[in-house]
């Protein structure tokens, strides 16, 4: 009994840690690769259990960012990426501006 309750509280602690992490990323710029090879850059606004991600002021790039080719992005605005189409997620870690 005691062990069980301990497990739950641990799980809760863990949960809130996950949430905290996600919340910390909110309103940060994210770069998402999709299964079809396109890359989206936008502000992380929302997510759920199925990893569906909503990006604001989103821009779409056709080529891989590593290719180095200059490419004009297409403006999408508010876009939702279904979790099953996520390949990778990167967060922009801007150094704190003084």
């Amino acid at each position, binding site marked *: 009994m005691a062990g069980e309750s301990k497990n739950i509280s641990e799980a809760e602690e863990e949960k809130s840690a996950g949430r905290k992490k996600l919340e910390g990323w909110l309103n940060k710029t994210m770069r998402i690769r999709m299964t079809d090879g396109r890359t989206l850059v936008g502000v992380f606004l929302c*997510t759920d*259990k199925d*990893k569906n991600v*909503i990006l604001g002021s989103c821009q779409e790039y056709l080529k891989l960012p590593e290719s180095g080719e200059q490419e004009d992005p297409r403006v999408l605005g*508010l876009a939702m990426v279904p979790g099953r189409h996520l390949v990778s997620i990167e967060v922009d870690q*801007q150094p704190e501006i003084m």
Partner: protein
Amino acid sequence: MANAETSDADKVQPQGSTETVLYNWQDVTEEFMEAASELSLGELLHDSDFGLFEAMSAIEMMDPKMDAGMMCNQTKRKVLSFEQAIEAGTIKIQDIPLQDQIGIMDMTLSCLVTWLEGHSLAQTVFTNLYLHNPFILEDRFMKAFSLCMLKIVDLIRDRINRASVFEEEDFQPMTYGFKMAGDITDMRVTGMVKEAEEELSKTIRNTRSKSGEERAAVIAEEHELAVAVFSRLKFCRLLLTTLLAFTKEKCQGIPDADKYCNQMLELIPALKSTIQLGVQPDEKSADYPLIMGFEPLVNQRLLPPTFPRYTRIKTREETIQYLQELIHDFKAVCSVTECTTLHGAIDFFLEFSRKSPSVLSRSLVQLAYLNQSRRVFGTQLMQDVLREQIRNFIAPPALMLKSPILNNPQAKEHIDALLTHAVRPLCNVIQITGHNRARQRDKWGHLLEELATLQEEADRVDSALHGALIKVDPNRQHLACFGTWVLYHTLHVMIYYIQSGFELELYAPHEYHYIFWYLYEVLYNWLVSSLNRADTFLMEQDAIAEQQKGRNAKKNKKKKKGRQYAREVAIIQGTQALCGGFYKALVGFNIDGKLKQPEVEFDSEEVRYNHRFAPFGVVGTPPPVHYTQFKDMTDLRRFDHDPSAQEMYTAACKNFQQARICYESVSNPTEEINNLIKVSKTNMVVMNLLAGGHKKESKNPPGWDFSVHRNFPIIKVM
């Protein structure tokens, strides 16, 4: 306008190239997946200022319907820009075979008319890669054609924008920053096309079959191809010159435009018969006909994210048909210059609109009649046109040459102010007819607000003028002169508003009775009396003019011109009787229980009634008839005994009969009047049958057939 254009272009032009933000990316894929899986089902993690509503409005990536960008990845063929295609050798820029040229030209025309039907330039005309930069073309025919096409597109866009009688469903003005050959003059372009035509006509001459000689099949084919390209180039050049002629100031280009239209019409059969000579798109490419020089997806990334992926381009046969109709419309536009009076012009515009012409024709006719400084045909001031019109309509003493108050400065001031204020609403009447049919209704409703204000002012001016007039000449009066004129227009607008509801199929049959009642008892009644009043004034004025001339005036002059409004009054009385017939027929159907009524608990006739006539609330004259008044006036208990259905049918029959007689008295009946006669006659027969007890027991609702006339149906009893 230039500003609006650039800002539009800015919106689509991808930003960001100027941004020099350096990102410091950190891969968090694993962390993210783990963290997100901790969320519970249905839980959304978001900031406090981001809610479900915002979440719902996001476009879904990788959803084929919402994600336009997906197409670029899905299509197997590589989407190449013009320059890339040249490099890859998939597109020719010199010595383009004539078969290809014919195909490209036809396809471009198809794109043009598809654009005119309200699609985006990026998905139509500019899927033609040659148009992206015709200057690098070395083929002279194709270069001349491409430049001519750009000029045409640019002119059309300019005309439509200027006339601004379009809505988003009619026309997409966005140009996405495409260059429209602005750095080269129209003269130069038509010159280039002409040169190309001359070169082709040499070929045509050289390959012509000479008598007694057998042409080789190759030469015969060459001849045919040259003729086909020649006709297309000439057609496009004529289209451009026609559009240029329409842009000339003061309608000076109209006679030329009419001439060019005839020339284009002569070319149509040649275009139609040579469609098959051009390269045809692969049958397999179902969504979009694909031939050399076209890339439907080349502009995909310029479009907003949720734009329709494909635009169905019209077929070549449909295109020629469309162009033929367009040119006939152009010819109708040319005849607008025959409208010498404002009322004549309004009738012309209403008639023009009835055929639902394309947005381009609608714009051209607007610009031909009223230029941007609101001068009729670019010359007459609208105020002067109105003054003339009112003088002819009701001959207000103050506007007549020998008016005793002609030189009264105050009276002049009043009149000038009134005319100035009348310009806007009357121009709006013309302008509203330029919009597409469905949009007109709302606009008529709003126009009533302006007309109501004008009506008030007209009444004030009338009484001021009356005061001034009776001081000079106590026997004359000036009451309700300008007022009657405004009322006349107000009533017409109210009638357009009501009638458009039939055309747009807004009314349910159980509503018909008060709609027809309102037309019958209120609007047409007022209209007849306003015309009678105008007539009285005209006759009075004639009498005075006669007196002033004295007895010296020629006596053998025709006694009286006959009432000026006889024709108009006959038509209006006919329509009034027609509406009366419908109303009574409907009452009869109601008594017989033939009309399906909505379930009482979900319905309130009063609410519907108020809604249907809501825009009339702002109008002072005629005062709106409220629902309770309507109920009182139509209460069957006002009759001595409850009328039977048969009696109502008999009354309706009489009304239809009366309508027919009125219409038939009109000399030189128009098609419209002939249709109305047909409706009255048929309904008369139907009513006669019903009055005789035909289908008395049947509870089947009557049918309403609007195929003969858009507003007045033929009643069918089942």
